[in-house]
């Protein structure tokens, strides 16, 4: 039976990942208060993706699993999610919005970065 037992992740690695996640959480909150222009959102989402990847790979054991289908499901789910987000956002980015015509003061903003274009 022992040859079938799972990979036991050392506790020190779990603690390391935990500390990285906590530091990244405070880091992302701090960076948000610094003016990086359109890169604020990009950096925030990058940090979030790093955190999520660590949770998936280590805490959820995807790095250690012997089941290849797990990775296939994960990759395909993320692929479909990105397809949904990308196609929807490119569609809406290429349209003029209706509701902001009242004053003409609010102009369309850049996708993802969200920064307001200069008027």
């Amino acid at each position: 039976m022992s040859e079938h037992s799972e990979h036991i992740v050392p506790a020190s690695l779990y603690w390391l990942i935990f500390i990285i996640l906590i530091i990244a959480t405070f880091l992302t909150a701090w960076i948000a208060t610094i003016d990086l222009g359109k890169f604020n959102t990009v950096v925030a989402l990058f940090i979030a993706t790093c955190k999520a990847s660590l949770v998936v790979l280590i805490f959820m054991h995807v790095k250690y699993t012997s089941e290849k289908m797990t990775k296939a499901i994960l990759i395909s789910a993320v692929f479909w999610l990105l397809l949904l987000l990308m196609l929807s956002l490119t569609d809406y980015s290429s349209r003029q919005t209706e509701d902001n015509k009242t004053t003409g003061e609010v102009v369309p903003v850049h996708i993802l970065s969200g920064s307001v274009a200069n008027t």
Partner: protein
Amino acid sequence: MSDSHAIGETPLAVEHEARPELRHHFADEQQQRNAASLGMWWFLGTEIMFFGGMFCAYLVYRRIYFPEFAAASRSLDLIVGTLNTAVLICSSLTVAMAVRAAQMGKRKLQVQLLLATIFFGLVFLGVKGYEWSNKYKEHHIPTFHYNVVGGNGDLIKENSAFLGIDKVKNDPVKLAAREAEIQKHTQIFYSLYFALTGMHAIHMIIGVGIFSVITWMAWKGRFTPEYHTPLEIAGLYWHFVDIVWIYLFPLLYLIDRRPGA
């Protein structure tokens, strides 16, 4: 299982006697474990699409009404949100450690870690409730008495340049029109905020329920190094809910916190 099967009757019977948790249609424990976790991953795949639809709606409206969304996002408490994220990460650590304790056959440690997980989960929900009650007091819940123009939930004073108020403040007609627009568009933010955090909280409540059962099973000594599948797949669910929050936190709280912007 009883002891009625004499040892040595058949090799297969002996093997099954020693491994009562192994269902007969699986070749071995590893296959059984992989099948169970694969089922959970399929479910999590559907959950990604479930939350993905709401994230998509959020991103589209955030793009269209960015100034309103940023102003409304600034009304959320950054410090409370950050600390609550940390609480959820603590709960993920205790889950991972509980699974590890089961892999090593440590029953007492498992129960302690699982109770810690439930505790962190409840703390998160309590803080969430506190944040929601603040939104209620500020009239930021998009129902009756919703108000962001003036009053104790005013969003305009601190964001007037950003919201385009400064440019129209000398023209009463345009000013009123702009204020009505802000009133309308910030409601979209708060609707999505409550839908996303509410759906996340429902997942947390379900998670706490699942983990109560898991803790009871661990207390009964049901999990061994060979068999702890319920704990393992409940852990996958908990980590997934954690990941949803890892994205919700920057998207909802950190839209635009730049000073003077």
